[in-house]
């Protein structure tokens, strides 16, 4: 099982993601530099980590979504490669169009960092199979642009198809319908604003995130 983490110049959760992946798979992920043009063929799962990719000027994730490595990622994701984006990774995935909707400035306009309780809305995905349906997990959030927006038709479709994977128990940012994480139609591309990779260590604040990484490994 080979995992990989894409590293943009101002990714800052790349090490955190790598630490979590290594903890669960026992093997260090490949770190893929943003200027590389291809995801290596032996990679089974790609993580887009949190951070500020290219400084997040213009809009969070916008510039990263135009990078060469992301072009290759989009192509491979469309062919079924499992991909997860956390925080900035989620923003990048929506900017590429792999996931619907957009992440806007938090409703109160402030950066928010705190542990957040989340409801596992669908435990039937390859990202959440290790959780009980409707169980509550705590992951930290840390973002300025995390308010999920999509038009009603998209939101209805997401809900009908069970693609709202996580919901906030106490919405921290104004996301529509309390959406914290969603999956694409094919079920292989997942994004969420909270940080599961920051919830894999008792000393650091809890291990609720392990289930998510174990689910991914299980599914491959």
């Amino acid at each position, binding site marked *: 099982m080979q995992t990989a983490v894409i590293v943009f*110049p*101002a*990714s*800052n*959760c790349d*090490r*955190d993601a790598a*630490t*979590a992946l290594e903890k669960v798979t026992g093997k260090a992920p490949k770190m893929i530099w943003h200027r590389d043009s291809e995801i290596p063929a032996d990679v089974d799962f790609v993580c887009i980590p*949190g*951070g*500020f990719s*290219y*400084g*997040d*000027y213009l809009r969070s994730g916008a510039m990263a979504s135009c990078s060469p490595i992301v072009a290759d990622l989009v192509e491979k994701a469309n062919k079924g490669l499992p991909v997860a984006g956390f925080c900035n990774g989620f923003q990048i995935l929506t900017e590429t169009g792999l996931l619907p909707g957009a992440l806007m400035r938090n409703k109160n306009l*402030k*950066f*928010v*960092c*705190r542990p957040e309780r989340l409801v596992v809305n669908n435990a039937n995905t390859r990202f959440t199979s290790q959780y009980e349906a409707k169980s509550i997990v705590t992951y*930290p959030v*840390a973002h*300025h642009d995390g308010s999920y927006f999509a038009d009603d038709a998209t939101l209805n479709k997401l809900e009908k198809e069970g693609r709202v994977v996580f919901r906030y128990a106490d919405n921290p940012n104004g996301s529509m319908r309390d959406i914290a994480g969603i999956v694409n139609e094919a079920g292989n591309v997942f994004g969420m604003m909270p*940080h599961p*990779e*920051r919830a*894999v*260590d008792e*000393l*650091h*604040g809890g291990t609720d995130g392990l289930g998510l990484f174990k689910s991914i490994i299980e599914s491959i």
Partner: protein
Amino acid sequence: MAKLPDITPEIVAEHGLSEDEYKIILKRLGREPNLNELGIFSVMWSEHCSYKSSRRHLGKFLTTGDRVIQGPGENAGVIDIDDGDAIIFKMESHNHPSYIEPYQGAATGVGGIMRDVFTMGARPIALMNALRFGEPTHPKTKTLVNGVVAGIGGYGNCVGVPTVGGETNFHKGYNGNILVNAMCVGLARTDNVFYSAAKGVGNPIFYVGSKTGRDGIHGATMASAEFDDESDEKRPTVQVGDPFKEKLLIEACLELMATDAIIAIQDMGAAGLTSSSIEMADKGGVGIDLDLDKVPQREEGMTPYEMMLSESQERMLMVIQPGKEQLAFDVFEKWELDVAKIGVTTDTGNLVLNHKGKVVCDIPISPLADDAPNYDRPHVKTEPRPVLTAEEIHETQDYNDALVKIIQSPDIASKRWIWEQYDRHVMTDTIDSSQSGGDAAIVRIHGTNKAVAITTDCTPRYVQADPYEGGKQCVAETWRNLSCVGADPIAITDCLNFGNPERPEIMGQFVGAIDGMNEACRAFAYPVVSGNVSLYNETNGEAIPPTPAVGGVGLIPNLDFFKTLKGAKDGDTLILIGE
């Protein structure tokens, strides 16, 4: 280039140099300086760079100890935390810029202190901030708090270093002068610490980071405005920070530091290119020739004066090992930073600046440091306020009401609104932070079972009542806070914020506080390894309360043994220790 104006007494005064100081310059040069040279002397001899009012008093501090690898005098202090690991840390003020433009002022304060730390080879692992604002009801306070907090978060969060703690006070004494003190703690290997002394002759000098613009060229620019027509276009501006660039700069510097390419390195802080080049040369006992045409420039038509005095952010200067130039270019280009070889070290002992084929400055370096003014400013001891005994205080009739009042007081009230805007978890080594309201933050050394504890403390009203006792108390409080979480306190950094040192009563507060702090440091064998002085914090003759902020760092050798506020249960026994 336009002709430089003759140096008049007005120009000298605009540069903040006294007549006596100017006379020393004339004597050492044996001639009149030109405007570029005058500008360089003025920034090097400014309070900020020369510590002319404070130097002799800072010299009293205990600065050595078993674990001290580097005390004051470098970009930051370095302590040994065993196993080949070193902690590098410092605190610094960005008070005035934060009052003018709270977001950018605070942001660039965070950027500056991080550069001081990674310049020495450390990866920043934690940030703290000590903030003082005016009364909550003052019309400016709300905007200032909002902007400062957003700026600190905006910069630190983006770079990806957790902001794990701090302190915030409100007092009318800060209505016209807020304090924004930022502290950064970094992790390095003891055998890979970098210093600023430029060694060797003929070694290439590299400039890296952002381009140089006309940022923060202070009042002195009025003099330069006389010889250009577009003075409006060139008006001095507040520095704007670019945390994205800083992140790249950290990664690039650390990557190059893993090789043997760097002989010396210095960040460009206040007085950018001037102080960085002169400090490196002075410490290494060499001269420096710079070709200003090679300096990456953001704007057209920049004069040597502007380039030397610019405070553009996110820039570094380094002396590179000959033969390693290409390696340096490759690393910085990989991280998409501007990089240029702008000069060489020489054996002349002079700073020589070339611009468009002309020598525009040629001055000996040693007087800039050796002859820097060092004043023994008159000071009068602050009469300590009479001690208030418990008997003199009326017992409250309503304890509930008293409790509510205490909880409501802005100094005591929860600071959650502030620290929730700071990413406290990034790097996934934060064991305890503002979130739990503990006495000190705890940050694990990545991949190990040990941690550092960090705290900042100062109670200005104590220092105001009695500078000596108050100074002692600041240091003692950090010691207690570190001990409380189970850490062995090791060393402190400080940020001494005071009013106008030319007033004997202010100077008295300053000297008293230092003596008190030093007394505590010696009693605990708890040395000062770095620090910063911010004077002239006053408006219309009203000085801020004396505020010597202290940042303490301790070691938790084994994370199986530490304590936080978490875990108290119903029925636990409370014990009060001490008087």
